[in-house]
């Protein structure tokens, strides 16, 4: 059971957890990831990010996220997965993304959640612009995100 939701409004962790569990009554392990807007630039200097603007290719993003979740399920079988990714203007500190996996065993839940997050960064039609003390800058793909994905392809 895979559920993908790309949307503007915020998500509530308790509600998302309850929804995931209702889809996976036999699960023994749930792993979640929540990504938040950091107020730091990637070099962690004194400059500050005020907010980000996330845009995406509606339709294709959902298809790609679903496909990433299916690939994760083939390698690390799980009972249910849920991805919520926000788009639009998000202030520093706001929640951006929620990825959760419920599985019989914890190893698969951890691996599948990490796999989904890694591919979501490198293979989904989402784009982030940082707005802050350095002006407006589109964020490029990060090299360590590409390496994180490569790791799954080599293992």
């Amino acid at each position, binding site marked *: 059971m895979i559920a993908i939701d790309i949307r503007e409004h915020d998500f509530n962790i308790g509600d998302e957890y309850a929804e995931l569990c209702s889809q996976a009554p036999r699960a023994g392990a749930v792993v979640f990831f929540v*990504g938040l807007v950091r107020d730091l630039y990637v070099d962690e200097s004194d400059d500050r990010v005020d907010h980000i603007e996330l845009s995406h290719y509606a339709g294709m993003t959902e298809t790609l996220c679903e496909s990433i979740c299916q690939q994760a399920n083939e390698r690390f079988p799980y009972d249910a997965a849920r991805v919520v990714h926000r788009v639009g203007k998000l202030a520093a500190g706001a929640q951006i993304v929620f990825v959760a996996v419920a599985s019989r065993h914890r190893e698969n839940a951890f691996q599948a959640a990490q796999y989904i997050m890694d591919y979501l960064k490198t293979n989904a039609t989402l*784009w982030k612009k940082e707005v802050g003390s350095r002006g407006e800058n*589109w964020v490029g793909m990060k090299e360590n995100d590409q390496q994180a994905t490569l790791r799954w392809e080599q293992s």
Partner: protein
Amino acid sequence: MIKVLFFAQLAEYAGRSSCELEYQAAMTPRSMVKSMVGVVPKELTDALLHDVAMVAANEVMIAWDDALSDGDEVAFLPPFSGG
């Protein structure tokens, strides 16, 4: 007709997020962009021809020299940065 979509910085360079182009025989994403040179902002064609954008046709990733069909929705996608 081909519907063309631009995202992120490409949409800013283009000054719009989509446009429509007449379909031409043997059209590919690369030939389409070459035909835009001088017609659209230079930043856009420069970014498309020299940067690392990817291309999708009808929401499926394709190569820059793959043939397009009349009616395709072609999207130019800068490197992703979600999550």
